């Protein structure tokens, strides 16, 4: 058991180190600039709208950056290593294949977590800056000032960050799964993006086909049920939108989504390990 953990830790640490030394974090600079630009963009709107725009922008930027890093990172994990042939010297060690997969995924997840954490702190910083700006401009009425502060320092934003992290962790797991099946990095990215889109669309499709009152064919129902089973429902993460809208979201709902995501990640990694076990290198 300890041996397993040590080996997984070695793979994870190496994956993380590679990303750091390849200056992946430089992308955060772009992110920071986007945020700062956005912070000054909507100043003619009400302060609630300004905060909403800023939070949406911040979380969308985190999402997009995380998606990019997660996708590119995952394609490097296995197809990239096979192309560069660095995988041979790792897999010939007394290292089980599933340990390699889990370690690679863990390294990528830790990288994503660190990046998301840094970006979330940046968002909080910009919100604080906005708070100061708005209080200087409109905060003479203490009631208004209190509302502005409440928008900027909403503790539910932590839940939003947790949901974002977990969503990106699922995307990374999907990419890892495809990277054990495919040989081409382009294929991995394309398939992962497709599943991502389907994951968002499936609830819309389900509503359209199953509940709009139209008569859906047996085949359509079966197909949609299959999709619902295989593809995670990314609309669950719209709790983030609820938080940004200022509506109450319980920790319980958040943790349920975290649990759901955990199950998907476990299934995906298991499937990836099974596929990789039988793969000739």
């Amino acid at each position, binding site marked *: 058991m300890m041996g397993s953990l040590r080996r997984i830790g070695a793979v994870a640490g190496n994956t993380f180190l590679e990303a750091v030394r390849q200056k992946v974090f430089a992308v955060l600079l772009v992110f920071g600039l986007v945020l700062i630009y956005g912070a000054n963009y909507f100043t003619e709107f009400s302060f609630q709208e300004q905060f909403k725009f800023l939070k949406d922008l911040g979380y969308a930027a985190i999402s997009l950056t995380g998606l990019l890093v997660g996708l590119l990172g995952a394609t490097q994990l296995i197809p990239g290593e096979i192309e560069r042939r660095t995988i041979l010297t790792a897999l010939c060690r007394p290292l089980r294949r599933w340990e390699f997969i889990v370690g690679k995924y863990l390294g990528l997840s830790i990288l994503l977590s660190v990046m998301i954490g840094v970006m979330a702190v940046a968002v909080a910083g910009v919100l604080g800056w906005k708070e100061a700006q708005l209080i200087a401009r409109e905060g003479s009425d203490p009631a208004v000032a209190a509302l502005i502060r409440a928008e900027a320092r909403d503790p539910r934003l932590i839940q939003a960050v947790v949901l974002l992290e977990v969503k990106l962790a699922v995307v990374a797991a999907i990419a890892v799964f495809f990277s054990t099946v495919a040989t081409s990095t382009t294929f991995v990215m394309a398939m992962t993006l497709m599943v991502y889109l389907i994951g968002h669309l499936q609830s819309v499709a389900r509503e359209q086909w199953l509940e709009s009152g139209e008569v859906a064919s047996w085949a359509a129902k079966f197909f949609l049920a299959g999709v619902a089973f295989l593809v995670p429902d990314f609309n669950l993460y719209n709790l983030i939108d609820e938080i940004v809208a200022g509506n109450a979201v319980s920790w319980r709902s958040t943790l349920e989504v975290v649990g759901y995501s955990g199950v998907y990640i476990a299934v995906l990694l298991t499937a990836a390990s099974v596929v990789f076990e039988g793969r*000739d290198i």
Partner: protein
Amino acid sequence: MGWFRGRVLALEGLDMEVHRGEVFGLLGPNGSGKSTAMKMILGLLRPTRGRAEVCGYRAGTIAARRQIGFLPENPYFPNFLSGAELVRYYGRLSGMGGRVLEKRIQELLEMVRLGGEAGKRPLRTYSKGMLQRAGLAGAMVGDPEILMLDEPTAGVDPAGSREIRDLILELRQRGKTVIFSSHLLEQVEDVADRVIILHRGQKLREGRLDDLLTRKKEWEVNVQGLKEEDRKELRGWLEKRGVQVVREGAPRERLEDYFLRSLPEEKRR
């Protein structure tokens, strides 16, 4: 092969045995199946039929892989690591850690002459020979019984090749078994005890080098100081006794030896 590509028979009917403590050479031109054989022993490829065992364990199992240290052909290492970090990574993958691992890293780097500052530089600054030596250190970190080297001197200059060959001989001295493949035949000749010759996936020959290469019907004597007129007499003496002179003349030195002799002392290393 991939999903939609045709299948290729890379190896057929290979029957091979390597004894403990010997240096075993896998010979053959490109595409003969040397790398395939090595990968099957390592469990990176699975044979469609047949069986391989390593020190009594089925090939590809964790126990079998513990016995082997592998250096692939033209290896690409994670070039963001330094030499020492590479060996540390492979050590951890082999289940080692702590001070034991650190000590082993220093020993190995000294052995392959990458100790000190050289070991701290990133791998992307290494020459080909240095990369091979770093890879060798990585392969040996778990103190395996068997070293498998796929084309270890490919792309390395003669001085570097000689170093690698010296290392192989040293490993044999220490009781290790070395299996290596090469298509540079003179280099194999220097170190191997036994060889197998493959061609298009099939075994052509196998045996001890001495047995395979010795022209048993011939005898070679190198002399110095034999005058021109005495040469004739010697030839005559031999022919009288029914001995056929197959070849005569001044022996040629190997180009590699000549090359190395020509370099200044410090460049030979």
